């Protein structure tokens, strides 16, 4: 009986990853992709996305949920890359410079986002989601009207022919996969971007170390109970702002890594869905709104991207229309977020009612005495 309970609990706690394992197990053979191709694609996408997804861990630690505001960091990374591209700084120096340039923009946007989230405690996710829409408007204003007119942009390959504004696509050909190709190793036809993985490894070590620092412990305390943390002398508001700023800065770095792998910037759309897909990938890995680990990030990227790769082909094989697969993967991304949010809310209410029942029982006991 106890064993049955254990299995049930395991299945319930890992329902999303298990569901994705089943989807992948069905879709992989149907898609007809060779295993070496699949492996190559997954490794490439791991290098491209893991850094971005790791940026989500710190706000979860401080109880701010899934940071949809990471889009702000992505915008900062894009602005930095547009400038670097116009200045013609190529290769790894270009990537490093873009990362450095993104820092002040990310800090500014992160601090703004953190301040607003402090005013909307308990509603951080929806607030950060709406902030990202609001900021998208500001981003478009900057990129479409201020770049070229107020912010100097020289190259016609970057600037729109009318003299101001940035083109739909900015080529990063001169820094394309420069991180991925340096120190890359080929194992059985699979290209492993060692340097990118080393950078990801450094961030993982940083996160593990950071959790043990005073600030990390403060964040965990704030995440568990803000009132208790405040009573313990922790500056809750400041801690929360720092966690969002850190997440935004890391998202900026992540976006630079992501775009150097892609080799071009879709100026007006690269950032728009990035938060959604990163969050979906993290949730697929078994994370929840209030708990996520580095392991969830890796598992999530592998499962989510396997689904992303095989779904269109599998859709085409099954229905004869690849668009079905395209829509399926987008639908799944939104669905997994919805399910995670419902599960989180249900769990929270369950805990609340259990606590209320306990309190009631204690009060009854007291009254009986």
């Amino acid at each position, binding site marked *: 009986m106890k064993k049955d309970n254990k299995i049930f609990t395991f299945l319930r706690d890992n329902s999303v990853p298990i569901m994705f394992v089943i989807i992948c197990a069905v879709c992989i053979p149907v898609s007809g992709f060779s295993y070496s191709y699949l492996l190559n694609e997954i490794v490439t996408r791991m290098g491209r996305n893991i850094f971005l997804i790791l940026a989500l861990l710190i706000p979860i630690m401080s109880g701010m949920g899934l940071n949809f505001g990471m889009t702000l960091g992505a915008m900062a990374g894009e602005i930095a890359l547009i400038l670097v591209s116009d200045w013609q700084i190529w290769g790894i120096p270009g990537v490093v410079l873009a990362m450095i*340039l993104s820092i002040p923009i990310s800090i500014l946007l992160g601090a703004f986002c953190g301040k607003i989230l402090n005013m909307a405690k308990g509603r951080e996710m929806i607030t950060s989601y709406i902030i990202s829409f609001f900021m998208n408007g500001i981003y478009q204003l900057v990129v479409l009207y201020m770049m070229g007119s107020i912010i100097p942009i020289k190259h016609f390959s970057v600037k729109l022919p009318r003299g101001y504004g940035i083109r739909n696509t900015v080529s990063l050909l001169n820094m394309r996969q420069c991180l991925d190709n340096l120190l890359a190793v080929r194992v059985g036809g699979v290209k492993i971007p060692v340097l990118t993985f080393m950078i990801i490894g450094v961030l993982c070590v940083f996160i593990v170390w950071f959790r043990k620092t005073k600030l990390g412990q403060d964040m965990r305390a704030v995440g568990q109970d803000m009132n208790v943390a405040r009573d313990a002398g922790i500056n809750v508001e400041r801690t929360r702002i720092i966690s969002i700023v850190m997440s935004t800065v890391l998202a900026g770095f992540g976006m630079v890594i992501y775009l150097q792998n892609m080799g071009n910037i879709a100026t007006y759309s690269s950032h728009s869905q990035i938060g959604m897909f990163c969050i979906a990938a993290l949730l697929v890995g078994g994370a929840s709104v209030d708990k996520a680990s580095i392991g969830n990030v890796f598992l999530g990227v592998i499962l989510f991207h396997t689904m992303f790769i095989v779904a269109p082909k599998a859709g085409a094989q099954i229905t004869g229309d690849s668009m079905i697969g395209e829509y399926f993967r987008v639908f799944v991304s939104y669905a997994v977020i919805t399910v995670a949010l419902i599960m989180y809310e249900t769990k929270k209410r369950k805990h609340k009612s259990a606590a209320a029942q306990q309190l009631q029982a204690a009060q009854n006991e007291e009254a009986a005495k």
Partner: protein
Amino acid sequence: MKNRRRFFFRLGAIALLVAIAACMMVIGRGHTVYIDNKSLEYEGETYAPYYRATVYVNGERVSKLQPKERASATNIGQSFSMTLELIKEKGGETETVDIAIKLPYSMDGIIVNIPGYMAGLPQDAWMSEFVSTPTAAEMQDEEIPTEEEDVLAGAEF
């Protein structure tokens, strides 16, 4: 005391980042070098192109140029070196020359004229800026995508 230490630590961190950024701007500046095997007129004298000029950059052959032809190579940083295998006339001997050029920071595209360089002319004679003119397609206005059109924006994720 603690505040002052924190302030100096922050200042140091900012200074370090600015220094790294400045370094990156110098060492990462990309240039496209156009190598011309074309005749050059300078102070009333004409410098004829080589019968054949083979250009090697970083040990790789970039191009084998005949008269009036141009090759191009990309370079990161301001030091550019190449090896030329030159044949003056048909049936003539091959001359191998290693060339190191300092590229001006402000120029994106730089034209290097081989006959002028080999004749030992001053730099402004054999080096000039390449100014590219946008093509008709590049000059066409683009439509900026709207949010509504972006249903599958993450398909490339």
